């Protein structure tokens, strides 16, 4: 599925300074029963966001109107657990385009890139600065610049660069996905398959 191009994103951010935010929290398994990719944003962080009777939990950050924006800032080891791409869909469908953490679980990171969410890995120190900036001013903006591979705290100008491989960067900035690429090399794949043992 094609997604929006990503170049420079300047936005306020939602802070979630919790470590090991796993995919079962991002989208609990009981919401994986759909056969279409629709409505996952409504159940993003379902059990942290709502009480058992579907009333919002007032102390959860997504229910706090002072925080908003297209960037989610999480603690270390964000997205651990299941391979469910539904977790990335839920984040995207809710309206986030970028997740910042000091450490991402592998599969989540791959899934995010495949559907057009930019995972930005920063140093633990910079992550701390971001949390402090948002704590001081919930309207503090971050600028994520993919062509330059930098993330900065707009008010203070503090900046850090991040890694992404050239191929994925090209895809994200153009809104391309891997399926387009693979389709373009079908004859090579066919030839490879013919020599394969299995």
């Amino acid at each position, binding site marked *: *599925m094609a997604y929006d191009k990503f170049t420079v994103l300047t936005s306020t951010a939602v802070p979630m*300074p*919790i*470590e*090991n935010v*796993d995919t*079962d*929290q991002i989208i*609990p*398994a*009981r919401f*994986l*029963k*759909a*056969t*279409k*990719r629709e409505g996952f944003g409504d159940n993003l962080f379902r*059990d942290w966001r709502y009480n*058992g009777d579907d009333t919002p939990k007032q102390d959860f950050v997504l229910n706090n109107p002072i925080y908003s924006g297209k960037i989610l800032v999480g*603690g*270390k*080891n964000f997205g*651990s*657990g*299941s*391979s*469910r*791409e*539904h977790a*990335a869909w839920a984040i995207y469908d809710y309206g986030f385009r970028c997740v910042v953490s000091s*450490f991402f*679980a*592998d*599969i989540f990171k*791959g*899934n995010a890139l*495949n*559907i057009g969410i930019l995972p930005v890995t920063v140093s633990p120190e910079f992550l701390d600065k971001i949390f402090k900036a948002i704590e001081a001013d919930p309207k503090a903006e971050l600028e994520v610049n993919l062509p330059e591979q930098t993330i900065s705290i707009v008010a203070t100008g503090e900046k850090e660069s991040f890694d992404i*491989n*050239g*191929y*994925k960067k090209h895809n994200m900035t153009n809104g391309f*996905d*891997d*399926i387009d*690429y*693979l*389709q373009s*090399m*079908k004859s*090579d*794949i066919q030839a*490879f*398959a013919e020599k*394969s*043992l*299995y």
Partner: protein
Amino acid sequence: MSHTPTTLFDKVWDSHVVRKIEDGPDVFFIDRHFIHEVTSPVAFLGLESRGLKVMFPEKTFATADHNTPTINQHLPVQDPLSANQLKALETNAAKYGISHWGLGNPKNGIVHVVGPENGITLPGMTIVCGDSHTSTHGAFGAIAFGIGTSEVEMVLSSQCIMQPKPKKMRITINGKLGKGVVPKDVPLFILSQISASGATGYFIEFAGEVFENMSMEGRMTVCNLSIEMGARGGMVAPDETTFNYLNGRDLAPKGEAWDKALAYWKTLKTDADAKFDLELNFSADQIEPQITYGTNPGLGTGITHTIPVAAEVKDGEASYKKSLAYMGFAENEKIIGKQVDYVFLGSCTNGRIEDFRAFASIVKGRKKADNITAWLVPGSHIVEQQIKEEGILDVLTEAGFQLRQPGCSACLAMNDDKIPAGKYAVSTSNRNFEGRQGPGARTLLASPLVAAAAAVTGVVTDPRELIA
């Protein structure tokens, strides 16, 4: 002729690279692809919207497991959303010519149980599935890992995915496991040492006497949990144990094809001087029966220990406190003797015949404790059949237990098998995340022996006390 020594992982990986992209991932060829009802429907929709076909339908296998009931499987599935997913899998499989082992099929079961037991999983293969515990198949010396739905669509349409090559780690454990210490305790121990993110970015090879002496079932349990360490997957070099397990399995090669495959499989090992990016060593005598007390699989310890104080764990203090609060536990408390309400034996971690044998060895001649609700769920119909044939069912029934029908069940609680809020479950599955086994459920991960000991005593109990 000189050649650079390489690892088992390099051998399998490098032989599956169709193209290397500069400053990008490898185009990686997939030999076997498993699909199930939950993570495949959107991939098929994607194919349709792009007008693509399945390139090699014979390399994909479908089974229904995540969402299926574990009682009354002969009746129509009650939950309309689950029924809809099962129907979608069946329709998509039929439409594209993919083998489908649906509910009621004698080969049906959990994807990571049925692949190996039918000889679909073979050494040297690359195997993917939209489920993170695909790492299980690494027990055969395959590179196996979980993928997302976009990648399921890639494999269906091109038999390839785009993957950067992970770094390599070897975990070596020598020595002999002690009494009451079974394969599940080994990865739980490793997790307690390196944390739930300790192997992120790596692919693990498990080496040393402990793994060499393990059965295939045990190796599958170990590789299954490699993903919980953050690793992409884990593998064990194939050996006589592997070949004996595979010989004669339904879809394993036969006759001349077997001989040819066997000759290749024997080359699949790490060369003597091969380099890993990271090597870890442990000794078997460090490992006692393990149990988790927190909300990620890295928060576990030896069963006789107390719950650590925040300073001793690698997770941040705030996360650790949140975790203990969810569990209703406190620092320095003893784990033995803790209240248990539910016992779950099953999942692709511990739903194989050996796990039922282990469980039965403890409950034999004892009775289920009155306060315990026990869900014993075989990983497949073949396992279920074996349980009956070996007389294990009689032992279980005698002790007051019932056997359910195969499926993922309470491992992820997508069906009706949900642990109620606030209740404690000793589970042989793989994840103790908040709400994993049902909203508010509190999970203690452990081996089938620890599960059995809890099931007959009603509290957390050291299984060694019940072994003659």
